């Protein structure tokens, strides 16, 4: 990771948004403030604060990113660890508010991040479906409507009344994917989750994503699997140290990325 103590940010140009824009980032910067020394206790903080000894390293995880994702596009993001990929997804999904710049999202977002993160081990599969659905912002009727379909897709019918702690990690991921994709999403955000379950289930996941794509879902994918990105995406952005290095056709961007990282 590199640290920048001072960065000149170009003035933000108001991005032009057209009818087919799904996600618009204008000069988006996200700054993490990391205390130079770890201050873990309240007492220590007060003492240091009084002595004016609280210092921070400022680190731009995203630095003046301009990007437009069009409606219905499958858009990939590649880059090394710490390049700012996950931070960008967080800024788009509203988890993080950008330090500078503007994020606009035209449509409702369905996040597909670390499947089954909100599952409770002691609750049954069925109870967790409703809990997880509510965490994603769906109402009770909306979940009842898709419940049977979730059970069928995840292929876990005999296990729905057993507590989640008895599930294997594959079963967990299957149920997580089924809940997260139960409703047709306008914008789907996918973070490194396509490699779950066995081959047959992976095929099922990909078919479902393709189905969404055909019906006009905008998909934003972050992955280290360059082959997955190349197969699925219409366009790709390469992030490097928080900046966009290149945006374009998958072949072109991946070739440039490979060339630099193998040299």
């Amino acid at each position, binding site marked *: 990771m590199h640290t920048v103590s001072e960065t000149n940010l170009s003035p933000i140009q108001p991005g032009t948004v057209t009818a087919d824009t799904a996600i618009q980032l204008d000069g988006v910067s996200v700054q993490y403030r990391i205390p130079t020394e770890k201050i873990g206790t*309240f007492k220590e903080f007060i003492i240091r604060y009084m002595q004016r000894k609280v210092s921070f390293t400022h680190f731009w995880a995203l630095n003046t990113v301009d990007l437009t994702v069009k409606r219905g596009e499958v858009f990939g993001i590649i880059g090394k660890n710490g390049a700012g990929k996950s931070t960008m997804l967080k800024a788009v999904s509203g988890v993080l508010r950008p330090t500078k710049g503007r994020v606009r999202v*035209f*449509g409702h977002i369905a996040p597909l991040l670390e499947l089954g993160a909100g599952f409770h081990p002691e609750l049954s599969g069925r109870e967790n479906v409703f809990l997880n659905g509510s965490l994603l912002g769906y109402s009770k009727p909306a979940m009842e409507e898709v419940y049977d379909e979730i059970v069928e897709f995840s292929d876990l019918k005999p296990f729905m009344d057993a507590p989640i702690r008895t599930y294997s990690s594959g079963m967990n991921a299957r149920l997580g994917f089924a809940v997260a994709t139960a409703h047709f999403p306008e914008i789907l955000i996918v973070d490194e989750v396509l490699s779950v379950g066995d081959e047959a289930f992976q095929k099922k996941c990909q078919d479902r994503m393709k189905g969404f794509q055909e019906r006009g879902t905008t998909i934003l994918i972050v992955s280290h699997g360059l082959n997955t990105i190349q197969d699925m995406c219409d366009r790709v952005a390469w992030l490097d140290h928080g900046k966009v290095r290149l945006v374009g056709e998958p072949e072109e961007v991946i070739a440039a990325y490979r060339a630099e990282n193998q040299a």
Partner: protein
Amino acid sequence: MATASKPVYDSDRQVSAAAREIREIGRYRYLLGQLVKRDITTRYKRSVLGVAWTMINPLGTMLILSLVFSQLFKTVESYPVYILTGLAVWNFFSQGSNAAIGNLVWGGSLLNRIYIPRTIFGISAIGTALVNLLLTIVPLIIVMLSVHFPVPWTMVLIPIPILFLALFTLGWGLFLSALAVFFPDVAEMYQIVLTAWMYMTPIIYPETMDLPPFVRTFFNYNPMYWMVKLFRVVTYEGRLPAIGEVWPAALWAVGMIIVGWLFFTSKSDEYAYRV
């Protein structure tokens, strides 16, 4: 489909964080119910008596305290009822505020991944405590009947002290959980504060007792003193509260919820960076 002129999410849209949060809680009210249900069902999932423990716990404490202290506090009429009403209020406060801290730290990994209104963990903590409090009213009435304590008609006014208590605890819990995100020690330090606070509040002893003057002075500035008092007026003393007993509790409740809500939401954009 959304049109180009109206984004669903716009990081530039200037709505005050506190107001936005209220709207978002309304949108996520189903999640709120799910979180309360999860807390209640998972707590006793592996125990045989299940949710009955919520009623047995305060009864057990009451029994022990009655055996030990009823000689000492024999001036207190129907001591078991006195202690149980005090414990109900105190347990609500300590459980609710502790769970608000714990929930935000627990929910941290989720807050980092998906968007959820941040106050939902604090509110669900109070929701769970509220269910537990309502459940302790059952053993309270049983104890009243078994010690031949006439159940007062003013019990029907119980929602009023409970409302003030819930608002106060929520505001306080939000304030503390925001602090605990930045300083993990707050959760540990708070246990000591809670113990001291409990002994400075007339829960197990009568307020007429011979007390050090500073404790008595502290009563006036102690919000929990007013919360316990108002609750006992309608349940234990069985009379209508005087104006002078209502307004301090109301003021603390409204003041604390405003301060806690504003403080929590003003920091809420930073949680995803910190938790």
